[in-house]
Every structure is written in structure tokens, then in C-alpha cells.
């Protein structure tokens, strides 16, 4: 802040403290130091971000085919956005709908199963540390490999159908348009339910003992303990974990890309996949960039709103 230097006044301190180091006094330095410390982070992150966002916005305003020189690109203004949002040929709105289904269909089961399993593991149980160690595995395995492996598991004569046939007597075609989306959702549930288990289990174990003792003296049932003590105490953590996961689900790319590449047809084309298909399959860089811009706007807006919600929720607790 140059202003900070201009408003500098002689501090009322003993002479020996005013010893000059370099060309700045101690008090001047204390005003500059916080900025100096964030300069490297600011430089690296914001310079690259500003460059690529600027370039992205420029690309979203032109008609440009992938692989053609930039000189050939024709300025079209907001046409790409207009086409995506309003054209009857645009599948963008379908993709938004599909993404919503994907988010709801993974987030809710992950939370419910995750909370359930966390409660089960929170009882007096032998081998809890082994269980939590196992649950780390799906989270840390490479998503691209996860996608390819599950592609085989979901094939007609694959592992999943072996169990489905054993228990239900049918062999569904997971590669078809109806079941492709549930298939990728199941993989997401496998990968990320442990995330909820680990976070919520840690939360459960940190709960205070006293409210339970008091309620037990009053003869409360297990359900009442859960409903009136555990749930309210866990609410902020549940909300936080859900928001964190929600932000991440909107960005899922590798697993869906590798499993079905957005297909068959558009059956698994969530917004991140839509960007890839518009840019590299349809080779329409302008349109792909316009989707990127809109996805960024959606995510940043949601982050802003959800962080506000979270802060308010914590405040009221």
C-alpha cells in the first residue's frame, strides 16, 4: 500500500528502537511486511488466473474451430451464450438438468449411508482403526483408473452383474442410455461415501458425554438420544461436509470421462463433460469456453452463497 508509506508519522518510541534497518523503519516495515509475504502467492496465482480467465472469456466471445489458427476466429459477441441458453438445438439445459440429477443422486445417498456407517462405527466395536484405514482407500485411488476399472465391472459379464444376477436374477445392460448415469453415480457413491464416514465419525467421537448421561437418567430411548442430542450437535459438521462435497461433485470429470465419455449419446454429459465434448468433439472452442465461463460463474456464486449460509448457521448454533 503506497498510502501506508505516505501517512507514516514518527512513532513516539525510545531512540534505540528507531534504529534503521535498510531504508525502512520498524513501523514502516510492519506495514509493508504482510504484503511482501503474500506477494509470491499473489503473483503466481493471480497472474496465471487473470491471464487464463481473460483468455477464456475472449475465447467464449468468438466463433473458432479447434485446430484452426487464432487469426481465423471471428468475433461473435455473446452469440455463444445466447445459443447455449436459448437455441432449441442446444443441449445445454439438458446437461444442467442431468448435472442436478447427478448431484442429488450422489450427495443424498453418500450423506445418508455415510452418517449411518459413522454411527455404526461409533459404537463399542473391535477393529475400528482397521475399518477407518480401509475407508481411506476409495478416496485416494486415482479417479481415472477407478473409471476404467469400473467400466469393466459394469460390463455385461462383469463383476456388478454377477452380484445383481446372484441376488435378483437379472442381468441389466449398464452401458445403455437408461443405466449409464446410475452406473457413474454408483461409482461416485463408492468413492466418496467414506469421506462422509471419516468426517462424521471424527465429529461423533468429539461429542461431549454429559448431555447423553443427563438424558439417560431421564430414561430417553436410543432414538430420542439421536434425534434430540446427536443430530442437533452434528448439524454444523453435516452441513459443512455436505457443502464441501457438493462443490467437488460439480467438478467431477475423470471418472465419467473415462467410463462413458459422456455417452451413450448425452446420457452422462454433465457440465464438465459438456465442456470437453463441445471443445474437442464438436471442435467448437467458442461454445466450450462459454460453458466453462458459465460453470465458473455457477460454482463461484454457489460457493459465495453457501459460505454465507454456513457462517450464519454456525453463528446461530
Amino acid at each position, binding site marked *: 500500500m503506497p498510502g501506508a508509506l505516505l501517512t507514516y508519522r514518527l512513532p513516539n518510541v525510545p531512540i534505540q528502537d528507531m534504529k534503521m534497518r535498510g531504508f525502512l523503519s520498524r513501523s514502516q516495515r510492519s506495514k509493508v511486511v504482510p*504484503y511482501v509475504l503474500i506477494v509470491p*502467492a499473489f503473483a503466481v496465482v493471480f497472474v496465471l488466473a487473470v491471464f*487464463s480467465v481473460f483468455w477464456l472469456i475472449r475465447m467464449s466471445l468468438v466463433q473458432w474451430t479447434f485446430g484452426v489458427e487464432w487469426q481465423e476466429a471471428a468475433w461473435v459477441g455473446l452469440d455463444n451464450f445466447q445459443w447455449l441458453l436459448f437455441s432449441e438445438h442446444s443441449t445445454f439445459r439438458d446437461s444442467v438438468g442431468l448435472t442436478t440429477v447427478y448431484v442429488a443422486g450422489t450427495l443424498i445417498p453418500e450423506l445418508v449411508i455415510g452418517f449411518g456407517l459413522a454411527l455404526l462405527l461409533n459404537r463399542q466395536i473391535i477393529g475400528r482403526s482397521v475399518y477407518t484405514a*480401509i475407508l481411506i482407500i476409495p478416496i485416494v485411488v*486415482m479417479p*481415472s483408473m477407478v473409471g476404467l476399472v469400473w467400466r469393466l465391472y459394469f460390463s455385461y459379464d462383469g463383476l456388478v452383474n454377477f452380484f445383481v444376477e446372484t441376488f435378483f436374477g437379472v442381468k441389466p445392460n449398464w452401458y445403455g442410455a437408461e443405466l449409464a448415469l446410475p452406473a457413474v453415480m454408483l461409482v461416485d457413491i463408492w468413492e466418496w461415501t467414506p469421506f462422509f464416514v471419516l468426517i462424521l465419525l471424527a465429529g461423533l467421537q468429539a461429542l461431549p458425554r454429559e448431555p447423553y448421561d443427563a438424558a439417560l437418567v431421564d430414561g430417553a430411548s436410543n432414538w430420542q438420544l439421536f434425534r434430540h442430542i446427536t443430530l442437533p450437535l452434528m448439524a454444523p459438521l453435516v452441513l459443512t461436509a455436505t457443502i464441501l462435497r457438493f462443490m467437488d461433485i460439480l467438478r467431477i470429470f475423470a471418472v465419467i*470421462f473415462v467410463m462413458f465419455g459422456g455417452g451413450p449419446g448425452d446420457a452422462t454429459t454433465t457440465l464438465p463433460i459438456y465442456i470437453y465434448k463441445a471443445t474437442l468433439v464438436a471442435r467448437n472452442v467458442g461454445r466450450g469456453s462459454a460453458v466453462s465461463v458459465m460453470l465458473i460463474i455457477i460454482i463461484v456464486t454457489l460457493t459465495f452463497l453457501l459460505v454465507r449460509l454456513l457462517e450464519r448457521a*454456525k453463528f446461530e448454533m
Partner: protein
Amino acid sequence: MINWNKLRKRLGGGALNVITLIAVLLFLFPYLFMVTSAFKSRQETFAYPPVWIFRPTLEHFRSILADLDIMFYMKNSTIVAVASTLLTMLIAIPATYSFARYKFPFKEPIAYGFLFLQMVPGISMVFSLFYIARRLQLYDTYLFLVVCYLLWNVPYAIWMLRGFIEAIPVALEESAMVDGCSRFRAFLLITLPLMAGGLAATAILIFIGVWNEFALAFFLTSTQSRTMPTTIAFFMTHAGIKWGPMFATATLGTLPVVVFALLVRKYFISALTFGAVKG
């Protein structure tokens, strides 16, 4: 006399234990099946119903080591992951210290600016990064990939570390400064050792994230700096997928991270939780 109440409680508890065991095994099973499939012959991989007992073969591992030179991609992954993790920490620690210990104008807006950047999906930036890389003639280099990862990892590290630094009382640093330490030495000798666990947790999560990252690595590298997650492209041939070598590569690529995460699972869980508790 049978104590029915006690018996019911015990059986109920036993049933819940069995449910827990089965549920957890369901999460382990797909990974275990992947690792074992790497040791199966081609026919056994496709067998229906699946083969549970078989004579293990190292054929696929031999094939990826010899024909694919998989160690080259392991080396690339290691270089990129280690370099990004170290650089991220080097850049993020001073910045975080500034956010945690100083008051200055626009502090929170800048901090939230970092948070929002971290939320931007990689896939939406990758094609503009691709053109920038081409323009700078940095396409398919370690350098560009590492710098791109900084874009996401530095904000992430700042948000993780800030909580860890703020949890350490500033009075400790001040008393060291009264004893004649400079601010920098006070941080280095007092605060840094106290937050070693937090540093480790952050570094581990960043390392795993970079090691596994797909979208950026897939579109920003080709032959020279291709990393492990993007080697899947080699197995998706026109003649179908080469499953045996694929399972072997998946095993090789995931094993280091799984072992690593299990060794430091205390930090891993605390990192997940800490991020959550802080929001």
C-alpha cells in the same frame, strides 16, 4: 433363567457388527478385486462368473515394464507431485503467516479471492491454459504442469494452514521476540515445529491430489511429461481395452498413494476433518 433382554441386546449388537463389517468390506472389495486382477491371466479376467482362486502371473507387470516403460511415467508423476508440493508449501507458508498474524486492509477479500479460485473446476480452465502453454512454448513440460497446479494448490494450502497457524497462540512468538528473536526466527523456531502435524497433513493431501489429477495432465502433456493417471489412454485401443496391463498399471499407480495414506492415516483423517470443521 434366561435374561431375554440381555440376550436380545447382545444379538442386536452382534447383528450391527456384522452389518458394519459387510458395509466396510463392500468399500474394500472393488479395490481388492482390481489388485488381484492384475495377477490374473487374460481369460481369467473375463471369466463369468468371476474366478476367485487362480494361479497368479506376473506377465502383465513384465509387459508394462518392458513394452510400456511404465517407470518413465512413474518418474514423471513423482517429479511433478514432489515439485508441486514443495513449491506450494514454500509459497503458501509466508502468505498464510501474513493472513493469520497481521491486520491489513482488504485482508479478508483477498483470502476469499483465493478460496474462489480454488473452487474453479480444472476442466473449465484447461483449454485456455492449453493455448497459453502453446503460446509460451511450454506445452508438455513439467514446468507448466507444476505451475498450473499451483493455481489450485496454493489457495488450498493457505486455507488449510491458516487454521493451523491461528490455533497456535501468538503470545509464544511474542515471548521469543522479547528474548531477542527476530519475528522470522520466532516463527521458524516456535510456530513451525508446533504446526508440523498440520504441515504434514496439508502436504500429504496436496501430494495425493497432484498424483491423481487427470484433467489438466491429460490435456497439457503428451509424450515428455505424461503422468500416471493419463496412461489410461494407452490401454483404450481400437481393438478394445488391454485389461491385464491396465490392472497392473492401476495397481502400480495406486499402491504408493494407498500405502502412504495408510501410514499417515491419523494426519489424513485430521486433514479431512480440519478442512471440514473450518469450512
